[in-house]
């Protein structure tokens, strides 16, 4: 067994463990919003024998009401508003010392009907604010619950599943298949595949994307994953710099995509050859040198190209909307755009993981195309036979190829 297959097996094991952890935590995630003020049940006065049971019952009911109200996110979706029993006597919720208006808060929380008011269709309440951004005066915005639920539950956990799942699939493929070798071995002769401009642009785009991806992951996962490790101060600094770098690196990333489109778009148009290539999975499942025909870019590379170009432009458009808050959209639109931006980003991370895999450990001879700009002749003949014929002028092979 080759070192690549052993490495793939080890990576698959580690990724499977991570995937299980994400799955278990996702299954146990309630999405419940926890009050930040600690509150507990307490008898309002020194209990006498007769009152003790009443107070205990009232306290228990009060906590049940409070507990139910912290599940409003789920109630809103799953259940109609529930009626809670009226409490006898004074408020029985005790706040930590220093919580302002705690007695009034306790009375409000226990008031019969308050839950119905909270569960009425969302409405916005505006007030006055001196904060220097649009909509700062919006004091109540119930759609925030929906956005937070989507952001914290399916987006975060689904993203974890996607990234670790793609990583696991690639690792399993490496463990089962091993590295895709050059079937006829290296020829000790090479031909030019990418010019210096193409390579420099590729690495500029790649560097910017890696920076965007890492900072985006900090923005999305910093609170649940990094906060316990580096604390609020550390995460605050890291998230602040991540946000700036995330937006700053978008410029070289988009410039790189535009240059790529100019250089490579014509050669990435879909043809019938691509369907056959996909049907045979590029011939990656066996070491036979007779792979499906391809010109300069095969169907797999075209998928990456269009994924990066279209995904990058969609990420740019949604990112600009987020960079100019509330210029085009209100709260509802901004929330959708933020979720869409994150989904596009996670999908692109998964796509690029596959690209990095096949360009490095997954295939012998592939990395040199972008590193030195040259590829082994046997590699070129095997994976891009029609392109090889074009650049070497081998008409004999071209005439034997069926028309597209």
């Amino acid at each position, binding site marked *: 067994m080759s070192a690549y297959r052993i490495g793939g097996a080890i990576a698959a094991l580690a990724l499977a463990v991570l995937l299980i952890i994400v799955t278990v935590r996702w299954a146990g995630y309630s999405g419940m*919003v*926890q*009050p*930040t*003020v600690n509150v507990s049940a307490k008898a309002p006065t020194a209990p006498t024998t007769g009152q003790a049971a009443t107070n205990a019952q009232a306290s228990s009911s009060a906590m049940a009401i409070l507990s139910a109200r*912290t599940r*409003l996110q789920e109630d809103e979706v799953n259940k109609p508003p529930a009626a809670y029993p009226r409490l006898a006597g004074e408020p029985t919720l005790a706040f930590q010392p220093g919580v302002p208006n705690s007695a009034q*808060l306790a009375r409000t929380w226990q008031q019969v009907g308050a839950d119905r008011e*909270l569960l009425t269709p969302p409405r916005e309440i505006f007030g006055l604010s001196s904060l220097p*951004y*649009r*909509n*700062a005066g*919006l*004091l*109540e*915005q*119930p*759609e*925030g*619950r929906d*956005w*937070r639920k989507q*952001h*914290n539950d399916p987006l975060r956990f689904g993203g974890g599943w996607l990234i670790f799942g793609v990583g696991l699939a690639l690792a399993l493929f490496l463990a089962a298949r091993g590295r895709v070798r050059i079937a006829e071995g290296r020829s000790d002769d090479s031909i030019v595949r990418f010019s*210096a401009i193409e*390579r*420099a*642009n*590729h*690495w*500029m*785009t*790649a*560097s910017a994307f890696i*920076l965007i991806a890492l900072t985006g992951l900090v*923005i999305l996962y910093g*609170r649940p994953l990094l906060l316990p490790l580096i604390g609020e101060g550390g995460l605050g600094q890291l998230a602040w710099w991540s*946000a*700036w770098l995330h*937006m*700053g*690196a*978008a*410029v*070289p*990333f988009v*410039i*790189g995509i535009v240059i790529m489109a100019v250089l490579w778009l014509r050669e990435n148009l879909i043809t019938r050859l691509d369907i056959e290539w996909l049907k045979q999975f590029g011939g990656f499942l066996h070491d036979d040198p007779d792979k499906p025909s391809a010109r300069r870019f095969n169907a797999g590379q075209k998928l990456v190209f269009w994924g990066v170009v279209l995904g990058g432009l969609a990420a740019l458009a949604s990112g600009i909307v*987020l*960079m*100019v*808050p*509330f210029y085009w959209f209100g*709260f509802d639109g*901004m929330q959708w755009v*933020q979720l869409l931006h994150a989904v596009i980003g996670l999908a692109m991370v998964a796509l690029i993981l596959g690209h990095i895999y096949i360009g490095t450990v997954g295939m012998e001879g592939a990395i040199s195309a972008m*590193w*030195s*700009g040259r590829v082994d002749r046997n590699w070129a003949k095997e994976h891009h036979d029609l392109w090889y014929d074009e650049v070497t002028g081998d008409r004999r092979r071209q005439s034997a190829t069926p028309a597209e």
Partner: protein
Amino acid sequence: MEVSSFLTGLAAAVVLTALTIVVYDFSQVTVLENLSLPSVHIGASD
């Protein structure tokens, strides 16, 4: 030769990122703060 195209691309990405941050004032962008709160949960956070 091999390293030069990689370093050229890396340097271009770094310079353009730095220039963008210097030129554009990102401090006006307060996206997540605006989206997440406030909601009806008084004193609540995620």
